């Protein structure tokens, strides 16, 4: 297929202009990150006396170790750990409850099944941003402020993954289920031995998407983690800016910004195929 692409256009000037256009696009995408990286390797005075340098300096280890070990309000290493726990909690929690409930909805008939389906389906429509105040109150009443469960549970309460697994289960041939029944498998044996192994690509794709979703959460952690030791890295960056007119510690802040994007970027790049599949699946 790819061999034939572009047959219509002749190679020549147009070909190089195409590359040029794409390279400009790539540079536009990279530039802010490059600047942040440069800023994370120079000293504060180099930044505050504009223009800052456009090539990396020699303060890489100093700035990153300062960020990781002491940070501004809390060590960034701790914030990264919090982010990791939150992201994994959201990812695993959502996948687990979605798998079981999609299995129940697709493979069983029970009273109220349709009602349950639509109730779950409704949650597709409402991002957490829309119900922040009452959700905050619920978390506060449960004493879950500044806790991992408070960070995780409200973000699990959405049906995107359930819907996705339902769609996938519906494409699993009926004959496989029948074969399993003839083989004497109970519903849960069918689930463990056949349905789960068959879903592993979907699970992995969803894992990538949900991990990024969880890691990049901002508003919710901003609301419920008042204790710096519970801050996640994405919301923690904003907390590093001093209030008032004080000068921000730019090298440390930029090092933190880079650290905040490293895990999800690694996930996207290293699992590109799964990531694309997950995106396409979850939007279908």
């Amino acid at each position, binding site marked *: *297929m790819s*061999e034939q*692409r*572009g047959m*219509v*256009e002749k190679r020549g000037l*147009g070909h190089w202009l*195409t590359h040029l256009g794409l390279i400009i*696009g*790539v540079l536009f*995408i990279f530039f*802010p990150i490059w*600047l942040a990286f440069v800023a994370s390797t120079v000293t504060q005075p180099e930044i*505050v006396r*504009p223009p800052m340098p456009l090539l990396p300096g020699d303060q890489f280890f100093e700035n990153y170790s300062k960020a990781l070990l002491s940070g501004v309000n809390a060590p960034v290493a701790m914030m990264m750990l919090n982010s990791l726990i939150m992201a994994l909690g959201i990812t695993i929690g959502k996948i*687990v409850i*979605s798998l079981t*409930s999609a*299995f*129940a*909805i697709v493979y069983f*008939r*029970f009273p109220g099944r349709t009602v349950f389906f639509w109730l*779950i389906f409704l*949650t597709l429509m409402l*991002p957490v*941003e*829309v*119900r*922040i105040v*009452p959700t905050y109150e*619920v978390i506060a009443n449960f004493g879950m402020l500044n806790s991992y469960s408070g960070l995780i*549970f*409200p973000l*699990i*309460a959405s049906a995107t993954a*359930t819907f996705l697994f339902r769609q996938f289960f*519906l494409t699993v041939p*009926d004959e496989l289920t*029948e074969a399993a*029944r003839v083989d004497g498998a109970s*519903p849960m044996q*069918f689930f463990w031995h056949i349905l789960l192994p068959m879903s592993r690509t979907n699970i992995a794709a969803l894992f990538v998407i949900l991990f*990024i979703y969880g890691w*990049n*959460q*901002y*508003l919710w952690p901003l609301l419920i983690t008042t204790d710096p030791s519970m801050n996640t890295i*994405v919301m923690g*960056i*904003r907390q590093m800016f001093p209030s008032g007119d004080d000068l921000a510690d*730019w090298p440390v802040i*930029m090092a933190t*910004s880079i650290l905040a994007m490293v895990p*999800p*970027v690694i996930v996207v*790049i290293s699992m*590109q195929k799964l990531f694309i599949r997950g995106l396409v699946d979850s*939007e*279908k």
Partner: protein
Amino acid sequence: MEKRVIFKGWMLPALLLLPQIVITAIFFFYPAGQAIWQSMFVPDPFGLKTQFVGLGNFEYLLGDPYYRASFVTTAIFSGLVTVVSMGVALYLAILADRLIKGSGTYRTLLIWPYAVAPAVAGVLWMFMFNTRVGVVAWYLGLLGYDWNHVLNEAEAMGLVVVASSWGRISYNFLFFLAGLQAIPRSVIEAAAIDGAKFWTRFRTIVWPLLSPTTFFLLVVNVVYAFFETFGVIHTITAGGPQQATTILVYKVYSDGFVGQDLGSSAAQSVILLVLVGLLTVIQFKFIERRVHY
């Protein structure tokens, strides 16, 4: 669509559903119900009691010039974000689609900003345009342009739009490229043999065939601009200057948490809820259509 083979019993499915039902009930339906309930009350001046006002909060909101301004701001903001991010992405996707080799490499180079959190994107752009240390702002100054998004409303809006669009380009690029690559080569070659030049081919063949993707992205990007850009706005402008970048979601937050006006914030939530509902319905209508395509 239904399964032919069905397992018997109701205990097991009930158990399997229980976790999702419990979590959804506590952290979704209860708060959503609360939002609707609270939207009909106002607290008394001492914050001790609340008083039922029915649709009063909504009436007040619709008459409130700040809220109406926020609506306009949201419309401008999401319109611009959608157009900018989709326009750049489409341009890059068309270029990448023309390549015989290497479109995969460009894809790898272009998609990963998707992984950058909007809030982090906000910090990056704020740093570039920072009035004190921002390198872009400084070079603009050299050119004689005095950049100050802290004071200038248009510049503030421009900055949050670019920062919000920046990470979104990846996502749109991916879908546009997939959409373009799904167009059968033979159709385009047939048009080329008919003598259609690139632009004519694009206008008469590629663009119509791409329209399902375009429409889908349109809806998805509007939803993104509505809700997921909170981080960008909070980090760059905090809604300012003079509320010039206060989009609806930001106002729910600032009225509810900063202003502590729960009734108004709840009423705003309900309005947003209706808006998302509409968008979702549009999206599903569209998906149905696409299935029948």
